[in-house]
């Protein structure tokens, strides 16, 4: 991001290898695999099913290598659309974006249909659908319509809701799918006779393999969204290629295991002589019927399968809608589609027009097309799209291999992309045997895109100077000076924060890093987020007016998806020693101690943290520091001595006797030497009381400021009951500073979660 004026802006890189690998897995392990297994088993038999996944995994890996190489050289968000622009120019990039939009939308339709199919089947098994006055197929369309509309609304609401729902469902689907695979393998080991289900291995001949491979290729779409996270990933040249390759590898293994589990799930007997034929006869519900037999109890089996499908289809539906919206938004931004496509809602900050058109495609395809044709259409669009990306990888390496900086070059070039191109072409052609409608719909969409570009977009496209923009990691230079980062949230409380920051920075002779995080909805690429930064810029300038004359200062606006993650990554990148931020002090959701933003920052920041509540521009003559021997006590005492009025301020270290073996006298003697007040103005006070928090709150009435350390209790104890600092923080009506010393929080489990 270019620096403009006194405040520089940059992108928040807070996604690690783990995050983006999970992102790819969450997108891939969608409903495609569930709906594809039953149909493919009927088409190609047991051997054909398992081989379809293994061979598709190989083709997907070749394509992932192309994506990985291109993403390492062009790590800007945008994926296929951006690669095509660099490799072939605007016309091809329009077609790539146009295909990406449709492919993601149709995949969303597929997930809505799968959700409806499995949910209604489960309700039917329970006998809850007998009252329906119309055929089940209409109910299926109605449920698909409703769930699609629900997730369109979720996407309309914006980033936080999208992120929360997506993360929850991704975890759920991973647990279920891996669980099914593991149970299947255990059953096969315990009862080897079930391996006979693999005979006949390929009952309808090897040519059917090509048909099923093309049909279930949609189950491998999703890893390409990792390329869209290029602007947000830590060390993108290294992590994005790795995440793509890892996610395809993991998903291939999981799919092969799940398809194996499906084949061995049904025991052949008098009622079912050929399990593969029986599963295949259930079509898109075949997987559910088979897995229900794998799990103990028919009801429990159906319930677990339904839950697995609900988790996976909804998470994939959610992700595909925002991915499709983003694709059409990018086309609007570059004026390849009307500018309205890049219009952002003032209220929710999401691209509403792009979302509206996306939702029309999702709903129309889900409601009007048969399931098999929806899946085939999605597959064929992704085959076309990946075909194009493989060509991009070859062209860009040959033409621009000397100019771009690569973080990864694929081995055996150009064999993998050539093999992938040939295989994708063959699979796309063979899909005509599965769905004729798909073969009309997909080329129709591509040709209509070409026509739109020829007659509309070509003359209107915005010329961008930086069509190849390689982002560089920005590292703060190493130095000995103490760095204080002040995270400014909004203009209203900026002044209050800055006035107290002056005291802390002055005492530490610090360099000041002013930071404002600008949360941007998932549907908007971070690079297009400048429209969200006006309010933050105002707050930054106000803060700078006070701090710039007194301290060496730099200021940054960072665009992020999640404020907490963004601040923590900024702290790491800029090697900050102390983070200062404000807290509104309002009641929080039950799962959090101080709030969903403050909690993770306190726990994960690798530096001292000071959180101020209601401190304003006041003189603190009497400062209370409740201590009990925790790791943050000494730092709390030091902060209190800095914030206390230098002329007449007094600090009282306070403890409640009888609740620990803490020796407050020894504690003061140890630390008083490095405080910023004369020793005679630092006192100790001990009281006896049954309730520690109540005693602190009573004592606080006589003070101007309370400074206390955050809890260092382990996660489980925190969940079981509120900690004393948390109780005091919420009930205290006086100005409050919560502090955490570097390394003061031990909650490793919560940190990882």
């Amino acid at each position, binding site marked *: 991001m270019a620096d403009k004026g006194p405040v520089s802006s940059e992108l928040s890189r807070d996604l690690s290898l783990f995050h983006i690998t999970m992102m790819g897995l969450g997108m891939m392990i969608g409903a495609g695999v569930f709906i594809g297994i039953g149909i493919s088993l009927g088409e190609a038999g047991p051997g054909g099913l398992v081989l379809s996944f293994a061979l598709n995994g190989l083709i997907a890996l070749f394509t992932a290598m192309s994506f990985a190489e291109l993403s390492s050289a062009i790590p800007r968000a945008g994926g296929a659309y951006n690669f095509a622009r660099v490799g072939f120019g605007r016309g091809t990039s329009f077609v790539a974006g146009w295909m990406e939009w449709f492919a993601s939308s149709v995949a969303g339709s597929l997930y809505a249909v799968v959700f409806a199919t499995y949910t209604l089947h489960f309700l039917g098994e329970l006998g809850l659908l007998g009252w329906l006055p119309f055929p089940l197929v209409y109910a299926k369309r109605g449920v698909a319509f409703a769930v699609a509309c629900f997730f369109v609304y979720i996407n309309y609401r914006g980033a936080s809701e999208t992120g929360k729902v997506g993360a929850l469902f991704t975890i759920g689907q991973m647990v279920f799918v891996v669980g099914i695979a593991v149970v299947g393998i255990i059953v096969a080991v315990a009862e080897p006779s079930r391996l006979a289900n693999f005979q006949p291995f390929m009952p309808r001949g090897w040519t059917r393999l090509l048909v099923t491979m093309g049909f279930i290729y949609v189950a491998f779409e999703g890893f390409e969204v990792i390329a869209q996270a290029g602007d947000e990933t830590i060390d993108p040249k290294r992590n994005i290629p790795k995440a793509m390759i890892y996610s395809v*590898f993991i998903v291939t293994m999981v799919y092969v295991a799940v398809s194996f589990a499906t084949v061995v799930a049904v025991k052949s007997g008098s009622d079912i002589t050929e399990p593969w034929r029986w599963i295949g006869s259930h079509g898109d519900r075949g997987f559910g019927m088979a897995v229900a037999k794998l799990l103990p109890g028919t009801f429990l089996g159906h319930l677990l399968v339904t839950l697995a499908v609900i988790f996976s289809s909804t998470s994939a539906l959610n992700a595909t809608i925002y991915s499709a919206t983003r694709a059409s938004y990018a086309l609007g931004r570059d004026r390849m589609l009307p500018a309205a496509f890049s219009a952002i809602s003032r209220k929710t900050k999401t691209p509403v027009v792009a979302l509206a058109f996306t939702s029309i495609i999702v709903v129309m395809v889900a409601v009007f097309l048969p399931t098999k044709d929806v899946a085939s259409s999605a597959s064929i669009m992704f085959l076309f799209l990946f075909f194009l990306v493989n060509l991009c990888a070859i062209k860009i*390496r040959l033409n621009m291999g000397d100019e771009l900086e690569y973080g990864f070059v694929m081995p055996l070039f150009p064999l993998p992309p050539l093999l992938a191109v040939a295989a994708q072409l063959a699979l796309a052609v063979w899909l005509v045997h599965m769905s004729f409608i798909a073969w009309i719909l997909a080329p129709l969409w591509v040709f209509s895109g070409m026509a739109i570009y020829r007659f509309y977009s070509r003359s209107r496209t915005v010329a961008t100077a930086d069509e190849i923009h390689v982002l560089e990691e920005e590292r703060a230079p190493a130095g000995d000076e103490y760095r204080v980062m002040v995270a400014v949230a909004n203009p209203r409380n900026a002044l209050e924060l800055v006035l107290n920051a002056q005291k802390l920075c002055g005492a530490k002779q610090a360099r000041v890093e002013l930071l404002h995080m600008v949360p941007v909805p998932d549907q908007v690429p971070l690079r297009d987020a400048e429209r969200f930064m006006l309010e933050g810029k105002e707050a930054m300038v106000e803060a700078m007016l006070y701090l710039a004359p007194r301290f060496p200062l730099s200021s940054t606006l960072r665009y992020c998806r999640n404020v907490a993650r963004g601040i923590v990554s900024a702290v790491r990148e800029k090697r900050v020693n102390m983070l200062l931020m404000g807290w509104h002090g309002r009641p929080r959701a039950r799962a959090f101690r101080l709030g969903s933003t403050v909690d993770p920052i306190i726990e994960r920041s690798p530096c001292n943290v000071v959180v101020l509540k209601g401190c304003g521009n006041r003189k603190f003559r009497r400062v209370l520091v409740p201590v009990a021997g925790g790791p943050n006590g000494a730092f709390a005492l030091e902060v209190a001595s800095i914030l206390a009025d230098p002329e007449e301020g007094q600090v009282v270290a306070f403890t409640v006797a009888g609740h620990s073996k803490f020796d407050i006298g020894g504690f003061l003697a140890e630390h008083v030497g490095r405080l910023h007040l004369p020793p005679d103005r630092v006192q100790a006070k001990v009281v006896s009381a049954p309730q520690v928090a109540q005693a602190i709150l009573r004592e606080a009435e006589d003070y101007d400021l309370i400074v206390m350390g955050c809890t260092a209790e382990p996660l489980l104890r925190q969940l079981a009951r509120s900690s004393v600092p948390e109780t005091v923080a919420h009930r205290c009506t006086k100005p409050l500073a919560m502090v955490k010393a570097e390394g003061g929080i031990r909650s490793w489990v919560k940190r990882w979660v």
Partner: protein
Amino acid sequence: MGVPSVDCEVKAMDMDLLVGCIVGFGALSVIAAIVVWCRARIEWVARTGARSAREILKDLRRGG
């Protein structure tokens, strides 16, 4: 005359299974090998610094 035709059918079925296993496990092995190879390359480039594709390939040929 009927016995040999039965043998042929059994062999054909086994052959499908045999070829299928070779293709399936072969594909999975190739995938695993490529993943390891790619990972090593990514780490090597990260260690030695990102640069043009030609320079990376030249260094690799020199024994990097």
